[in-house]
């Protein structure tokens, strides 16, 4: 076989990407070798089971994917604003909207939030790590290799091009031959292992490892949102796993679950996909709600209004999320009764969501708001998200949906909920907890620039798309040189450029803050406004998190702790702390499964079998692993704490 058989050739943009990827890769190799950092990389990061480090790796990967998905988006916007330029051909356009959607949902939004959960949830409940630290590392590496697999598709073998929903029969072997769709299937399957494992892991951590005295209804709201999200993950992801497996068997081994021939049921794919897909959008929005709740109550300097109702509305949203999936394909042709049932259940979701919105407003009411950068993101979220929510109710009406379906109205709607909800929350959460992760805050002035650029860019980009949709512009359309669509498309592209600029300022801010920001001296970084246990730890957080775990029997325990002068270091109560050992197994295990997936993608069965056997060997190896971790001595804890607290 010749190398050009699997490399994508003939596209100048892709050649450019190949060269820049090769140069970037070489640069990283060079820097690591030159500064002799290989050992450091392996010992401190690749083998780490520390939830804080794994969280940082999740967030770095997610930012990288935000860049990749963003570049895809910009290329689409350029094509749509200048349709006569011939910037992209139709095949390339199809590939780009597919990878944009898949990457933004699976490899950006979820890992970003899971990264924040990784770092913050154990700190919020007074735990020293996850319930299963080894499994947590395994989750990260399965996501990482799934992501890597999906991302190499555009230089090796060709990207998937059937949309992020990958509807059959289009995505079946008959109509999409070649490895492209296999990259989608295996990339999602591999990273799905990690998501499911994280769901179980966090669920057990939250249910079993809370600080003494902390009841479920004492938990911080972000931890609550994580718990509810974990339930959705555990129940929704198996559906995706099965659907992906069936389609993989269809494509690689010639079965006919979703084909047009052999009495397959192509619409069954849409049905199964959205049975997972709708809960999935709540997987990425509920943690966002949790982050906004934390930020708003911190900077309104009040307890969150209606804490219990906030929790119950999340639980109700989670339940309803499993009962609305058909609203994604009202136009499939089901009868009025089927559509009506799902139309009603869809509109019901607006009720608990509305409750949450009013609770946030009530928290802000008559409070002394401090306009920090995370608070700006959170305040901007409320009106922007409502625009998305209200248009969602419009789309939820089955009869009206026949008009809106697959038009830019839909595109505008889901970008309004996903960007104003999830992406704003990712930025808010990252800036908010940044000092906990890295020991310094992000620069406020640059942060405000990033925020305003992104915020205005977002509205300028997506608001016109509602009207493009009403003017009849369909999604996923490559040729758009229709005179009446052009002006709005140009405006939209200008907005997209604003968002890109905001992202660039944000990334520059990471560098700028690393160089110039003042280092944190206390753990309570936001002018002493912290309310929950993560602010009670020192900055940087010691690897064992809490020297002594405080007794908690209320919401926002750190407020009272500060009044009473208590800390997480009570010298006479320090005991040796049991910690897990670092291990390279998860990395190797998932690298082997990544190899197996790569083999399956190209249907190189020997490689696939080799990788799978390797995976089984790693599982056997793990079964006979008797490493129970180690104990941190009392002296070391005291020394670390005294140094960090300046005692």
């Amino acid at each position: 076989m010749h190398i050009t058989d699997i490399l994508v050739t003939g596209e100048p943009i892709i050649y450019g990407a190949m060269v820049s990827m090769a140069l970037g890769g070489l640069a990283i190799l060079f820097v690591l070798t030159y500064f002799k950092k290989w050992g450091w990389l392996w010992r401190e990061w690749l083998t780490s089971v520390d939830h804080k480090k794994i969280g940082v790796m999740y967030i770095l990967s997610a930012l990288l994917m935000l860049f990749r998905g963003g570049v895809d988006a910009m290329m689409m916007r350029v094509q749509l604003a200048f349709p006569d330029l011939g910037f992209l051909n139709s095949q390339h356009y199809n590939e780009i909207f597919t990878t944009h959607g898949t990457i933004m949902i699976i490899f950006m939004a979820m890992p970003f939030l899971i990264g924040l959960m990784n770092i913050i949830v154990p700190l919020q409940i007074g735990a020293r790590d996850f319930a299963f630290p080894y499994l947590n590392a395994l989750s990260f590496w399965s996501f990482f290799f799934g992501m890597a697999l999906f991302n190499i598709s555009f230089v090796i073998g060709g990207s998937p091009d059937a949309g992020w929903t990958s509807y059959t029969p289009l995505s079946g072997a008959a109509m999409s031959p070649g490895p492209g769709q296999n990259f989608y299937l295996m990339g999602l399957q591999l990273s799905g292992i990690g998501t499911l494992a994280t769901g179980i892991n966090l669920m057990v951590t939250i249910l079993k490892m809370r600080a003494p005295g902390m009841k479920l209804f004492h938990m911080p709201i972000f931890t609550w949102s994580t718990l509810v999200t974990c339930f959705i993950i555990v129940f929704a992801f198996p559906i995706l796993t099965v659907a992906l497996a069936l389609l993989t068997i269809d494509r690689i081994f010639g079965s006919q679950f979703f084909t047009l021939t052999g009495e397959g049921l192509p619409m069954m794919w849409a049905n199964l996909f959205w049975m997972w897909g709708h809960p999935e959008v709540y997987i990425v929005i509920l943690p966002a709600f949790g982050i906004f709740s934390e930020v708003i109550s911190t900077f309104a300097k009040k307890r969150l209004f209606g804490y219990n109702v906030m929790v119950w509305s999340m639980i109700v949203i989670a339940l309803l999320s499993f009962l609305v999936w058909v609203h994604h394909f009202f136009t499939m042709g089901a009868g009025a009764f089927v559509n009506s049932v799902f139309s009603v259940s869809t509109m019901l979701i607006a009720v608990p969501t509305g409750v949450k919105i009013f609770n946030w407003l009530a928290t802000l009411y008559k409070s002394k708001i401090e306009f920090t950068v995370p608070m700006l993101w959170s305040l901007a979220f409320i009106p922007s998200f409502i625009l998305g929510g209200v248009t969602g109710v419009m789309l939820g009406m089955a009869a009206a949906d026949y008009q809106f379906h697959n038009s830019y109205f839909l595109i505008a709607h889901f970008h309004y909920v996903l960007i104003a909800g999830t992406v704003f929350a990712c930025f808010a959460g990252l800036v908010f907890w940044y000092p906990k992760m890295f020991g310094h805050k992000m620069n406020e002035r640059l942060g405000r620039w990033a925020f305003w650029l992104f915020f205005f860019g977002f509205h300028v980009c997506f608001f016109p798309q509602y009207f493009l949709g009403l003017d009849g512009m369909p999604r996923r359309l490559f040729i758009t040189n229709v005179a009446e669509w052009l002006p709005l498309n140009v405006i939209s592209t200008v907005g997209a450029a604003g968002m890109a600029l905001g992202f660039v300022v944000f990334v520059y801010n990471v560098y700028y803050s690393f160089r110039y920001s003042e280092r944190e001296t206390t753990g309570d970084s936001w002018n002493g406004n912290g309310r929950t246990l993560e602010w009670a730890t020192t900055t940087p957080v010691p690897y064992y998190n809490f020297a002594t775990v405080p007794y908690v029997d209320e919401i926002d325990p750190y407020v009272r702790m500060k009044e009473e002068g208590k800390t997480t270091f009570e010298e006479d109560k320090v005991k040796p702390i049991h910690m897990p050992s670092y291990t390279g197994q998860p990395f190797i295990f998932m690298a082997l499964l990544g190899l197996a997936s790569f083999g399956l993608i190209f249907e190189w069965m020997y490689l696939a079998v080799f990788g799978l056997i390797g995976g089984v060997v790693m599982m056997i190896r793990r079964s006979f692993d008797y490493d129970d971790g180690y104990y941190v001595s009392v002296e070391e804890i005291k020394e670390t704490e005294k140094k960090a607290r300046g005692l």
Partner: protein
Amino acid sequence: MNHVIGFILSLVMTLVAAWAAIQSDLPVTWVIIGIMILALLQAGVQLFMFMHVTEASSGNGHVPWNMMFHGFALAGIVVAGSLFVMSFGHDHGDHGDMGDMQQQEEQHSEDHNGH
């Protein structure tokens, strides 16, 4: 020990099911019934040998009733929901989708027998 037996049992049952579908000459109905029974046994092995159903000592604290209930509820939604949706709500004739799926299965095993 329990775990080792359970592990071997579940492997054996999986292999038997695969054999029944791919290699055996049994009639399709029997293959389906056989796989169903094996699936139930498989679930039993998981629950009794791995998942603490028999551990009453901690006041049933480890018994996953809660998750089992949720699991059944979800399975109900997936199966009933799919049947409801894929019936399209206006095709109550004799050739509903269950029939289609069965035919598909039949054709499948015939294909395999052919090899």
